[in-house]
């Protein structure tokens, strides 16, 4: 049977506010356990939450960036359940009136662009962490993360493959960094994905029973976990079984998912409006003010790169896919905008290759945008050849200095004096009579031999273009 996969994602993005969503405690990651949990975060008797306006502003920013409807009156609810790292016995979240309503985003998983619907995005507080491997049989609780603001972004079940799901997750990941509401750090849990996966026979209208996959902390694992789940469901259905609605935990080490709880075991969260918090009222003025702070969005940037720089659709997409990469490229453009195409080639070529090889983020690149543009300028002004530039690039990567210093130190400056090159060309022609004869008898390929000889004599510094021109002139 032909199966169709249906995927919806729930993304939890930690908003990069200085303090927590309902308390003044710091949100900084990696601090001593429980050193950043104040009375409110600890859920002491009598404490009350006070909404951090910064979190609201960042959520609005997201809503505006995906052209979503902003609920100008939205309400915080309590989601009640017991868990040791949930200090109050309820999580403050938004149920019926989320801050961000329906919106959409474009993804380009392959050549074709597809629109994915976003159902809603709501504000909520993060829980603490239970640590099971610190004290033998006991569980330790760290409440530093408790109360960190989260934006939960819920998509429509619009994705039809793991690849599409990853493309969507990456788009959201890029966007939140562009608009500076989340640092996007997946290792630290600032950006987490849960995937709702179901399959149905191709052509069937109603959706199959879904499983929710949790604990996915990289795009690679997202793709793997979904594919694994699709296979699991196919096996069940093809053997005549039934998929159970449940939450499954992905184990990236064993590369398996296992059941966490079924629908029957699921909590009744007993949502109701939090009486400690007033409804959030958002004025038209505030919306307008936040709209003004929106930077150029990836989709706009891409269009600009195509229109103004003449880059291809594909190149423009690659260069705008990640904020740091786009920032790097834009820094280079400030140097010489007319070199854009050459810059793009180098960024997507040698630079990306080296970064990948050494697993370095572009923010930490040993070659800064300024120094790379300087190197490329030396190609355009004929100081060095493209080939030599690669050698200079390697030296720069090793930290041997900037392009000019390295060219100077290694004497790599291209020979551009026609007189000097002419002498050498004449010398080579004089010393290789048999080859000259071959050329004259029609062997055009022998020209490469002469170029090689000349390059050898000039230690590669002769301008190849000039060499070619002179050779042809002298030989004919």
């Amino acid at each position: 049977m032909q199966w169709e996969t249906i995927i919806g994602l729930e993304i939890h993005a930690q908003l990069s506010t200085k303090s927590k969503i309902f308390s003044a405690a710091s949100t900084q990651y990696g601090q001593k356990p429980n050193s950043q949990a104040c009375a409110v975060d600890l859920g002491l008797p009598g404490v009350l939450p006070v909404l951090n306006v910064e979190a609201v502003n960042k959520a609005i920013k997201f809503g505006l960036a995906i052209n979503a409807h902003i609920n100008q009156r939205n309400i915080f609810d309590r989601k009640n359940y017991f868990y040791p790292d949930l200090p109050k016995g309820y999580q403050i979240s938004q149920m019926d009136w989320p801050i961000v309503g329906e919106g959409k985003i474009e993804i380009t998983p392959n050549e074709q662009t597809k629109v994915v619907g976003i159902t809603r995005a709501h504000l909520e507080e993060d829980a603490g962490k239970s640590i099971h491997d610190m004290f033998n049989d006991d569980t330790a609780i760290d409440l530093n993360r408790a109360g960190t603001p989260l934006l939960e972004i819920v998509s429509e079940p619009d994705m039809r493959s793991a690849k599409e799901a990853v493309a969507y997750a990456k788009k959201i990941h890029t966007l939140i960094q562009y608009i500076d509401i989340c640092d996007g750090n997946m290792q630290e849990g600032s950006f987490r994905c849960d995937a709702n996966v179901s399959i149905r026979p191709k052509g069937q209208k109603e959706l199959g029973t879904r499983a929710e996959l949790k604990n996915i902390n990289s795009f690679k694992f997202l793709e793997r976990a979904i594919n694994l789940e699709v296979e699991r469901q196919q096996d069940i259905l093809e053997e005549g079984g039934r998929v159970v609605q449940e939450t499954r935990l992905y184990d990236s080490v064993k590369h398996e998912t296992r059941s966490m709880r079924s629908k029957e075991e699921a909590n009744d969260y007993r949502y109701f409006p939090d009486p400690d918090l007033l409804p959030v009222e958002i004025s038209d003025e505030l919306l307008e003010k936040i709209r003004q702070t929106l930077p150029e969005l990836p989709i706009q940037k891409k269009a600009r790169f195509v229109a103004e720089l003449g880059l291809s659709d594909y190149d423009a997409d690659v260069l705008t896919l990640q904020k740091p990469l786009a920032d790097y490229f834009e820094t280079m453009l400030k140097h010489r905008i007319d070199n854009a195409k050459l810059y793009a080639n180098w960024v997507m070529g040698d630079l990306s290759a080296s970064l990948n090889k050494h697993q370095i983020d572009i923010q930490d690149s040993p070659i800064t945008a300024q120094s790379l543009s300087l190197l490329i300028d030396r190609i355009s002004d004929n100081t060095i050849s493209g080939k030599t530039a690669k050698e200079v690039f390697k030296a720069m990567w090793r930290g041997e200095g900037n392009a000019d210093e390295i060219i100077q130190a290694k004497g790599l400056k291209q020979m551009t004096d026609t007189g000097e090159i002419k002498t050498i060309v004449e010398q080579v022609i004089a010393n290789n009579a048999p080859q000259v004869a071959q050329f004259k008898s029609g062997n055009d390929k022998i020209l490469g031999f002469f170029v090689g000889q000349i390059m050898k004599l000039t230690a590669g510094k002769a301008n190849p273009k000039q060499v070619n021109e002179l050779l042809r002139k002298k030989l004919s």
Partner: protein
Amino acid sequence: MHTKTIVELAQGLKNKDFSCVELTQYYLDRIRQSDLNAFITVTDELALAQAQAADDKIALGNASILTGIPYAHKDIFCTKGVKTSAGSKMLDTFVSPYDATVSQKLNQADLVMLGKTNMDEFAMGSSSENSFYGAVKNPWNRLKIPGGSSGGSAASVAGGLSCFATGTDTGGSIRQPASLCSITGLKPTYGRISRYGMIAYASSLDQAGPMTKTAQDAAIVLNVMAGFDEKDSTSAEQKVPDYTTNLNDSMKGLTIGLPKEFFSSGLDDEVANHIMAAVKEFEAMGAIVKEVSLPNSIYAIPAYYIVAPCECSSNLSRLDGVRYGYRAKEPKNLEDLYLRSRSEGFGEEVKRRIMIGAYALSAGYYDAYYLKAQKVRHLISDDFKKVFEQVDVIMGPVSPTTAFDLDSVKDPVSMYLADIYTLSTNLAGLPGMSIPAGFAQNLPVGLQLIGNYWSESKLLNIAHQFQQATDYHSQTPCKYKTVGTNR
């Protein structure tokens, strides 16, 4: 000395008739000898230290009217370094690491805290019998309940164990004990006093207030307690007037509304007579009386007993035995830890309300119960709104009867009826007061005043004028002076 008001004690301190340390020691002695069980914790050392500081301040001439006045603090307010139990076994070991905003404000006013008063567990009750620390007794008759949940506070003031006390009122918990103990109790408009650090029972209904000997004292204490608090999003950014300025305004032309629903069956005849006599007193002062109607107030009890349990079921979830408070011995696993800590740590009434609330919020029941109750709440508020277009103040009984016998009401629903006249005020968020209005068979009767939003000044003015014309408020229990010999 223990019958003196804040105004009188402040004068005595100023005149150096007695020092604050002497005054404090005097109260501490009375508390020690008392059999009312009004206190859960007596903070002798702290009180004497505060008294000494107050004496120093008085000596320097820096005293305000509240400097050095000994008061009793309901054990629902968090007090830094002092046990804060809310009357529950669950918090028997809990020493708060922080001060409630109200506690902080009272400290800053140089008051002397004598201790923390007994109460119904987590403020759930109308008799102060639901306490892990045993029932509080009514100073007027030790076989009777003092009302609740602020019964310890009321008994403390009426019994001469403190000059005044703090209380909280979710459905009548200031007004009903004030009424049954013949003191003055004020529940301000919701949002008037910060709830930060006040252990939450039902967040949308809870409101703190003063419990005093006179309306004038209540005005003085409210001046300190009231005000916006950035730590409480539900506190109002409403200007705090000086509540003592309008105390002497004339009653001439004041329109009083008597809701017919407050005088229906179930109201004790003698109580009704005292209320009508009090109303006559106002007529004599030039007030005009009108019959009004609050048709939806009959739904106040069912609406309240949905909203309050729903909120409390969630508010008390933090008491899970994990971080602080009572923890069951040797739990087998996490579920066992939760189940036993909460079963063993909470009292019967608290568990009942948690269960009602959890049920009413469950999927499939939410609309029928919680949402419906919220709609009723709106209707009740609208009733009041209409009435306040016609009158300045609503008057009626606080409680349908005088204080009943200890251990006599076993059925929870009968107990809930004790708050029949007070609940609607909380549901609407309006301010209400109870002032002494006489005695029925030697037991106090309280007159309830309900005002429009933010009309505390008006209520205090009306109460003060009544207290100028009557002396019910200065009556003291007959065995008052010989503490510990009653029964």
